[in-house]
């Protein structure tokens, strides 16, 4: 289990290699890399700045990673999230999970990225050549994506 919040870029190949190195109980490694797009909501994006809440970010990422490790039988997990000014094509975030079985790896990876989108204290400021700077608004689809990971006990109550 590891969490890093950093300004510097990361190397997904190295990170994945280190995640599973020497652990022959691992049958699958799932990962997701988020990249800066050059368009958002139909508008060209020339750069993006990610602001975060130092201290709380690391604390929350460690908590959600611990929750993923409770809910799925993971052999290893990693979250790396960058902050600062990024250009289109730059890496923003890496989530990687390793497990004996592929579904635990794939599901926990999706759980972590859905969670990051709505609950991690990051804010995106987009720069556009035509319309200047704009804070990205939260999206309802991201809230719905995060909501479907509510524990099944919650879901059972909602269904009753």
């Amino acid at each position: 289990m590891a969490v890093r919040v950093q300004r510097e870029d990361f190397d997904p190949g190295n990170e994945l290699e280190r995640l599973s190195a020497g652990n022959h109980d691992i049958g699958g490694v799932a990962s997701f890399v988020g990249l800066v797009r050059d368009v958002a909501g139909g508008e060209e994006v020339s750069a993006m700045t990610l602001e975060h809440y130092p201290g709380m970010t690391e604390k929350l990422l460690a908590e959600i990673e611990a929750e993923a490790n409770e809910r799925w039988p993971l052999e290893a997990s990693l979250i790396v999230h960058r902050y600062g000014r990024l250009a289109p094509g730059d890496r923003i975030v890496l989530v990687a999970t390793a497990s004996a079985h592929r579904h635990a790896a794939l599901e926990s990876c999706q759980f972590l990225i859905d969670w990051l989108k709505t609950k991690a204290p990051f804010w995106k400021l987009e720069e556009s050549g035509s319309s200047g700077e704009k804070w990205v608004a939260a999206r309802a689809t991201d809230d719905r994506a995060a909501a479907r990971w509510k524990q099944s006990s919650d879901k059972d109550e909602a269904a009753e």
Partner: protein
Amino acid sequence: MKILYFAWLRQQTGIDTEEVEAPGEVTDVAGLLDWLKTRGPGHAAALADLSAVRVAVNQEFAELDAEVAPGDEVAIFPPMTGG
């Protein structure tokens, strides 16, 4: 009490961190936000629509009725857009 502002709340208040001494009748998040509005036009504008604002007390997400006390770290920010 230490107040932190992020994203457009930081820009509108013009402040990233401020140390404040709230009056004794401020005991919860709602009361604190109401009192912060009085600190200037930037604060008033930033906190005009509380539905657009999220709060954390001592780095835990908090609702409007959560308690606040001297010495707390209170962060005010818009909904998160990470990942």
